């Protein structure tokens, strides 16, 4: 057998290209692949036929435009919606400045977000009219056209601000620390603007929809990250008391489901608080989310810490850096870079986990979708509503994982 192979003439590699060649190589290269291809084609035919027939002929999509506002901002009063738009415009300003100052990956990500905004501007989802939709929007005694016009104006304003600040911030390195400061302050700023003061303030009981989901996720991500780093450092600390407390905390939290923590926050928390102190429901859920995610974040960061060679720490000590400086400037930058995919994966999990607040009665995107379905007008429209909501979750999660892949490639993780 081997002898024959040696004497056989070896053909030059096939360099021919074209669709037929591609089909041959990728779909029909062996007999079993041919069978698999045929089966897959039959499967796809039925899936697409069934799916498309349902989407275009059987589904009743009016439920989405009629409830779009509810799905987006929940019971947030429409007269106060400008607060949300102000926050969005501020974020566009920060994004534009960051894109101009840093360029590269930051520019590409912000540009993608801006393009997404532009697409939203052009989609006529909320313009679709029918009797029920009109009724749902007119309840607020506003003119539909005026409302739609207002929404477009805000969004357009945000996009214009983005472009203007991008050109303003271009190549201005001095702006860097100001922009970072701006991002740090953006969370408390957002909360203050959204909540407001005085008689016009909007209490968190009126927060809902996609807006609440995004607030929960954003606050959760920004808070659980530093807490997770601290816990990871604590678990690797040489001080036994700190090490053991961190370890017990991490393992206990990782051993129980998030929903028990959320229910605990809503049932047990009041018992453990002094006297009449009552934290609001959203804040308690947010706390449970942060405390839960931090334990997982700690484990991811710990993986990165373990990958940093001991010599780095010793070298830092040799040049006289203190423990905080060693960690902040030497160890953590290397550790975090190694585990970016895991950290972003945790952010994605946190984003999906915000949907569990539905169970304790908050009206996040999923919760509000369920309340729409509970309305007798829209009874039985659950496939349409759930598909729409699922698409929103999917876009955000997929975008995050895509960005993480890009960051990974940009930093060359695994190549050095």
């Amino acid at each position: 057998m081997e002898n024959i192979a040696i004497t056989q003439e070896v053909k030059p590699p096939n360099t021919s290209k074209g669709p037929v060649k591609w089909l041959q190589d990728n779909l029909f290269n062996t007999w079993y692949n041919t069978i698999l291809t045929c089966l897959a084609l039959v499967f796809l035919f039925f899936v697409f036929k069934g799916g498309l027939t349902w989407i275009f002929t059987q589904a009743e999509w009016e439920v989405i435009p009629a409830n779009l506002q509810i799905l987006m901002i929940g019971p947030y009063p429409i007269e106060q919606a400008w607060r949300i738009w102000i926050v969005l415009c501020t974020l566009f300003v920060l994004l534009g400045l960051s894109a101009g100052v840093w360029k590269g990956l930051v520019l590409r990500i912000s540009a993608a977000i801006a393009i997404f905004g532009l697409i939203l501007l052009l989609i006529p989802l909320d313009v679709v009219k029918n009797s029920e939709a009109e009724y749902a929007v007119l309840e607020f005694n506003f003119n539909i056209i005026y409302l739609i016009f207002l929404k477009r104006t805000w969004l357009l304003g945000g996009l214009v601000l983005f472009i203007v600040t991008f050109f303003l911030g271009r190549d201005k390195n001095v702006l860097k620390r100001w922009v970072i400061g701006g991002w740090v302050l953006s969370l408390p700023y957002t909360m203050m603007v959204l909540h407001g003061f005085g008689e016009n303030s909007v209490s968190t009981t009126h927060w809902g929809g996609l807006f609440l989901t995004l607030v929960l996720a954003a606050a959760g991500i920004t808070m659980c990250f530093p807490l997770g780093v601290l816990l990871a450092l604590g678990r690797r600390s040489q001080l036994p008391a700190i090490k053991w407390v961190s370890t017990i905390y991490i393992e206990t939290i990782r051993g129980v489901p998030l929903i028990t923590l959320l229910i605990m926050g809503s049932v047990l928390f009041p018992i453990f608080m002094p006297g009449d102190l009552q934290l609001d429901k959203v804040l308690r859920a947010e706390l449970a989310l942060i405390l839960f995610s931090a334990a997982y974040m700690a484990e991811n960061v710990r993986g990165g810490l373990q990958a940093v060679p001991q010599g780095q720490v010793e070298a830092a000590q040799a040049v006289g850096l203190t423990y905080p400086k060693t960690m902040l400037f030497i160890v953590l930058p290397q550790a975090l870079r190694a585990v970016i995919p895991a950290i972003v994966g945790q952010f994605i999990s946190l984003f999906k986990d915000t949907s569990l607040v539905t169970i304790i009665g908050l009206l996040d995107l999923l919760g509000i979708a369920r309340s729409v379905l509970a309305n007798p007008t829209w009874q039985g429209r659950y496939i349409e509503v759930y598909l729409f909501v699922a698409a929103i979750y999917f876009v955000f999660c997929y975008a995050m994982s895509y960005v993480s892949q890009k960051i990974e490639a940009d930093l060359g993780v695994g190549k050095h």
Partner: protein
Amino acid sequence: MHHASNTMAQNSTNIPFYRDIRFLKVFFQILFLIGLILLAGFLYSNMLHGLRRQNLPLDLSFLSSEAGFGISEGIDYDPADSYLKAFWVGVVNTVKISIIGIIFATVFGFIFGIARLSSNWLIRNIAAVYVEIFRNIPLLLQIFFWAALTRALPMVTNSITISDSIVLNVRGIYLPTLERTPEFNTWLSYLFAGIILAIIVVFVLAAFRHFGRLSEVHHTDRPSFISDIIFGTKWAAAPTFLIVAIAGLFLTSEPPFVVNRPELQGFNYVGGMNFTPEFSALLIGLTVYTSAFIAEVVRSGIQAVVKGQREAARAVGLKESQVLRLIVIPQSIPIIVPPLTSQYLNLAKNSSLGTAIGYPELLHIGHTMMNQTGQSIPIFGMIMASYLIMSLTTSAFMNWYNYRITRIGRSS
């Protein structure tokens, strides 16, 4: 030398205690612990106040009193049973859905994980789309979706039946089961005979092998009789046993099993196995969601086996199936097992989402008990302890398994 160490000792005594690292280490830990104890004490006193306010003394005696609420599915239970029994029903339900879910998720996860590495473009991309879609949509949303679908199934009289054996209706999913007949015991004795015969065959073959080689091999190199059985002839056991077992199927006067199909009697289906709508929805949700993650674990595990290993295997002339069986899979299993374990644990913990669609699992029953008795603190303790025990035993078992296979990998 002596002088130098002397000055060092002097230096260390010169450092004021508040800058001495040894002192500071102990000091900060004590400070940290004192802070922790103060916090715990604060919470404890609040708890006592809170409980007094609600007139609810901490007391475990409620566990033995009558529960009084019904549970829609699970092991034998009556509303007159105690709270402890009700809680146990929840634990069993959680374990049940977790184990079945893990089995299904593993099967589908491996199928889709391997499909993602297929040389067939279509198969590869179908698997990729499956993984990306179901990984990026919250599990709770998926479970709600499946629950809504199972609730929208037709009424009993209009049930969907598939080849007369699988029935779908609003009361759940009915599957056929195998049931024993009186002849089963006869067949059992054939199985027993099969085991004995298999042992005899293995021993006889080993004896032939052992004594047949007496003359060939020098007696000090000769493997022992036991190792002849273990390495030489144990293969004969399984076929012998199977032949006897199958022969037994034909020799019994009637088949030892009959298929028990669900059949419509009156207004309900009887017979076979019934999965309630809640159980089915939760099972589908957990399986689909977790299998997408397991597929990624499997794919990255197989891809982590360096390319050179495959190329070397092909170079020494192994067939493609042998490359997979002998080279790739043994090396990827140790990489796959740890993340697979955490996926199993996630599935078990995620089964608590069944509470949102009314599947009577641990958390759901715990919640009902809290609402009835108001004893939220001890019940929460029980719930968390149950989850922790499940997590710890699963991870202990998987760690043991991982340790075993990595050791085999190294020794051979």
